[in-house]
């Protein structure tokens, strides 16, 4: 059995080695937080396209949401002496040692999409507060500065939830005419959001004029609950992320708006920054890719 496993591993290793042959290209080690997440997969695709364009080789590892695995992956990149590392951190604190290892080894490291406590060579991403601010400003505008709303949180305590909460509340503070009836977590989950919305419909009924969901999955759940209660025409629903389902729903006029996080833009900038660092060219320490509001008017350009 053990011999079989060894044989399989050797074949796999030989297979990996082959990609590194040919003319000497710079090699970038990439550790992604979770490739089974749709957005992260898009980010990965964008990086591979950019790498082909710039003629660099990527070694992509999936940390599967596990920060410890992520640290190990970066350690093996250091051992392999890659030219640069792109890290898509799974956690703010627990992924920090990965950044520390790379910095200690003198290998440039670029964080993409989310942050770590330790400072990398450069950061490429978007300001999550901004996404919620754009969404909430849209709601305020549609309500004419006056009305009652509810908000669905993501997983409590995660960076994205905290920042989207902060961005949404900033807008509410500036617009005292808009009142938050209730806010509760649906843990980024469509089914949970549907139940939560049903419960809110029971307790507030027609008082609810708008729903801000901190991601599209939850917005879709809220949307379905409202449609079943035949209330959707009176309630504005807005999400964040622009997943495929949400874009279709915006196009069909069911979902009012979502906010587009530019995966391709972030991915491209991350690879470009890493390549510049390899060539010892000057880079911006922080590159922010702006969010965009998607409504029925401009949804066509986001649908592939």
């Amino acid at each position, binding site marked *: 059995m053990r011999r079989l496993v060894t044989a399989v591993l050797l074949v796999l290793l030989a297979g990996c080695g082959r990609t590194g042959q040919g003319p000497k290209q710079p090699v970038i080690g990439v550790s992604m937080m979770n490739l089974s997440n749709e957005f992260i997969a898009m980010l990965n695709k964008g990086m591979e396209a950019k790498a082909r364009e710039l003629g660099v080789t990527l070694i992509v590892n999936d940390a599967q949401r596990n920060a410890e695995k992520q640290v190990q992956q970066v350690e093996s990149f250091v051992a392999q002496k890659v030219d640069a590392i792109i890290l898509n951190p799974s956690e703010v604190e627990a992924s920090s040692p990965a950044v520390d290892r790379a910095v200690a080894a003198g290998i440039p490291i670029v964080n993409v999409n989310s942050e770590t406590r330790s400072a990398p060579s450069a950061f490429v991403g978007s300001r999550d507060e901004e996404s919620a601010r754009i969404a909430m400003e849209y709601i305020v505008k549609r309500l004419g500065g006056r009305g009652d709303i509810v908000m669905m949180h993501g997983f409590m305590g995660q960076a994205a939830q905290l920042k989207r909460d902060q961005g949404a509340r900033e807008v509410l503070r500036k617009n005292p005419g808009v009142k938050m009836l209730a806010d509760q977590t649906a843990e980024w989950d469509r089914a949970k959001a549907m139940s939560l919305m049903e419960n809110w419909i*029971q307790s507030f*009924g027609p008082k609810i004029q708008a729903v801000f969901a901190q991601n599209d999955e939850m917005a879709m759940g809220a949307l379905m609950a409202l449609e079943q209660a035949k209330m959707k025409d009176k309630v504005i629903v807005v999400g964040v992320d622009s*997943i495929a*389902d949400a874009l279709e729903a915006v196009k069909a006029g069911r979902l009012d708006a979502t906010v587009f996080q530019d995966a391709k833009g972030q991915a491209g900038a991350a690879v470009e920054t890493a390549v510049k660092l390899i060539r010892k060219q000057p880079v911006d320490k922080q590159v922010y890719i702006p969010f965009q509001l998607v409504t029925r008017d401009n949804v066509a350009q986001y649908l592939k």
Partner: protein
Amino acid sequence: MTRLLGRFGLVIALAVLCAALSAARPSFLTLGNLVNLIRQISINGILAVGVTFVLLTGGVDLSLGSLVALTGVAAALFAHPGEYPVIAPVVAGVAAGALCGAASGAVITVGRVAPFIVTLGMMTAARGLALVASGGRPVSNLSPEFTALGGGQVLGVPVPVIVLAAVAAAAWVVLARFRMGRHVYAVGGNENAARASGIRVGRVKMFVYTLCGALAGLAGVVLAARITTGQPNAGVGYELDAIAAVVIGGTSLSGGVGGVGGTVLGALLMGVINNGLDLLNVPSYYQQIVKGVIIVGAVWMDRSQHKS
């Protein structure tokens, strides 16, 4: 009669909770909210009925949440508009669940590996299969006939509620009236004694794991229809909610004691807690604390009732 009395503590807990909630929030005790509440427990209820059989034999099944994701994806792949009749996704989901359940059952009986380990392995493998089958992306664009299984109504009763009622009634009949039901209790009560008295223990175990998998498949179908997508990352942690409902309902984790009636009450109690905390707008952090305390409190009350 004694079984009814044994469940008294749980009924009291449920009644007290409902009374308190309707006093605090008049919207709790409306027909609309009660229908809403039962619809919300239907997925957990179907899973809990299935895992009741497994727990009665003294086993456990940790793979339910992953099976819900896998079978939901399997169903969704056959549920695009204008491709197959609506029975196809239902069969695909239930069959996928039954196959996985049977695979776990076979390893448990033939390989004599502990159910905890086998179903833990199935939990990981089924999640992987769900990701492979869906390519990691939600499977959407489902036909309206299919999504009616989650969102539709018959004479004002939501379809998921009808499915749960049918499943619970059938399970009750099997446990109370069929020989297989008696054998399930016998295996959980004392496996060696059951074997000595001529019960084919392996067959009983194959039956309970296959049935549990098939019901997880049914739950996956209903969930996919309800949220109108097959989500490869759906159902995380559902197995624990299902097991909690069964145990709250008075089924012993060591097997041999309990039944489906209690399980439905247990699922109902958990649903009331969830619904009530949302209606009261209890902040998220506190909700988790309150849920934990109420679950343990309900079981405690029930057990002290048993002793007296």
